[in-house]
């Protein structure tokens, strides 16, 4: 049964439904899955750059149908286990919402950038499976996407609150919805049986000190989010610098000098991810 998440605004609820994705990424993956010579790696590379497609395949591979719920946190592993036929099915049934190109402009860059930064943080901290940390970074703002698509009016109200009251997006969400995207993330992750590491990173990236089981995952995403904002790459909804929780560095046993090294690494690698064209399909409406 589908459980809904009620916001504090009367009659406004979030429901588990079809999610939007980026037209260009979808086109690219569609082309790849139609080519019998495509490797899983090639598909994984493209899907890993879209938070919604990544969430979809992870959701599917962690469903009880496959018999190992909550075990798979890597897009590459998910694709190996799902196989071409299932991936094709996921792609075919993914629809594109035009709304995405205008309302969440900048969020893809922000998410992809955060994935890159989080992966670099994990490498710098010497953590195992840095790819899994990248996925955490990629999905850390999924709740914003879901809210934007399903509750466009409230989404606009959050945007207005950000501008008029000079709030962070996260704070404005609380004022308008009654909770932040961290809560939406936790709800999605729970419902989709994503691995506990992913769930905690998605729900605790604003307050890594609150992470109970996987503080390193939450801390790595927290730092990744911070780094991508420092570079002003993409847009998480507001233009404010996120505060840096000192506990995040502590949890990963990193120093400020280590953070500098990650920032350098990020600058070097940014061209790699920004090569993916995330420009909206529809020209932005003049405001």
């Amino acid at each position, binding site marked *: 049964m589908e459980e809904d998440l009620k916001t504090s605004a009367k009659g406004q609820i979030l429901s588990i439904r079809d999610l939007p994705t980026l037209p260009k990424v979808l086109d690219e993956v569609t082309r790849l899955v139609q080519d*019998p010579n495509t490797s899983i790696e090639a598909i994984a590379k493209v899907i890993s750059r879209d938070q919604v497609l990544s969430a979809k395949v992870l959701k599917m591979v962690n469903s009880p149908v496959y*018999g190992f719920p909550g075990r*798979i946190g890597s897009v*590459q*592993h998910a694709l*190996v286990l*799902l*196989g071409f*036929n299932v991936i094709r099915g996921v792609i075919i049934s993914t629809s594109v919402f035009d709304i995405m190109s205008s309302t969440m402009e900048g969020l893809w860059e922000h998410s992809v950038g955060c994935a890159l930064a989080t992966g670099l943080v994990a490498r710098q901290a010497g953590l*195992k499976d840095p790819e899994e940390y990248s996925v955490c970074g990629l999905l850390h703002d999924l709740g914003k996407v879901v809210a934007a698509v399903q509750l466009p009016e409230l989404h606009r109200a959050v945007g207005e609150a950000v501008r008029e009251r000079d709030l962070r997006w996260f704070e404005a969400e609380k004022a308008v919805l009654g909770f932040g995207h961290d809560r939406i993330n936790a709800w999605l992750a729970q419902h989709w049986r994503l691995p506990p590491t992913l769930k905690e990173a998605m729900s605790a990236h604003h307050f890594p000190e609150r992470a109970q089981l996987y503080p390193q995952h939450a801390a790595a995403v927290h730092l990744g989010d911070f780094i991508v904002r420092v570079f002003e790459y993409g847009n998480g909804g507001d233009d404010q610098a996120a505060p840096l929780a000192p506990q995040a560095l502590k949890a990963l046993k990193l120093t400020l000098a280590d953070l500098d090294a990650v920032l350098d690494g990020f600058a070097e690698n940014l061209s790699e991810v920004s090569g993916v064209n995330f420009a909206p399909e529809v020209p932005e409406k003049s405001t």
Partner: protein
Amino acid sequence: MPACLFSRQQRAMLLSPDPELAALFRSLWDPTEVEWTVMAEGRRAMEAIFNEPPDLLVVDNRLADIPSAEVAAIVKSENVYRQLPVILCLDAVDLERDWDWSEIEADDFLARPFSAREARERVQLTLCRASRGMDANPLTKLPGNTSIIGRIQDLIDRQDDFALAYCDLDYFKSFNDKYGFSRGDEVLMMTARVIVNTIRGFQGVKSFVGHVGGDDFVFIVPADVAEEACRRVVAAFDDIVPHFYDEDDREKGCIVSTDRQGEVRTFPLMALSIAVVFNTGGRLKHYGEASAIAMGLKKKAKENPKSSYVLDRRSE
């Protein structure tokens, strides 16, 4: 009927006092395809069914001595006969009452009046469905031993070149002992997906994947892709399997446990061992030869605690 619908002659049994019904079923297939045994009395048929179970049983509800549902119940209550598909022949009047199909366990029914065409298609569908579901592994739903042996023998008989790979997991038992069988099942489901998807990844080749049981799997591919298939299966398995351990064991890279003698023992993470037998130039005559060669090779693959594969190159 497509020539390949049944791989061999099917033996069907009809229990009915109605000679017209018997004549109808007999007229639908050439006896080399489906051979019918007809008995007019239900009770007397039971012994014949138990001694030599047919491939299909059709029971007419017009039997004087026993209701058709009871025949179905008797057959289906024994685990060794459960797979025998049973079709009931009912009259329109029979359908005026409710039938509790969760109790009766028949596989299908025909309601009079039915056309010859309908009877034929129903029976064929039932036979095909039965052969599909018959020996699928209950966990992974992959074809089981009967299908595996059938497939291998079929390829041998046709003198096709193929590579037959036997896969099993090293240290699966120690994983099961520590984490419990339901976590073990998770690993088996994962292994099945890894093998199936890797093998299917080879486009345009004939292939087959089966689950012998427990942690034993087989796959069949053309000889020229066998080594690449092993390489890919092993790589994907090794990449994914650590995630099925708890974090501390994954960190350590092993399970530490105490055996019954009180001795502390260390078990590495699970690995996949694959032994590949090639049938080239009609070298094999019987599937038993293939499995015997494979068992010998597997010992060699198992000497390596890491995932590994051994190819039998003797014939080349």
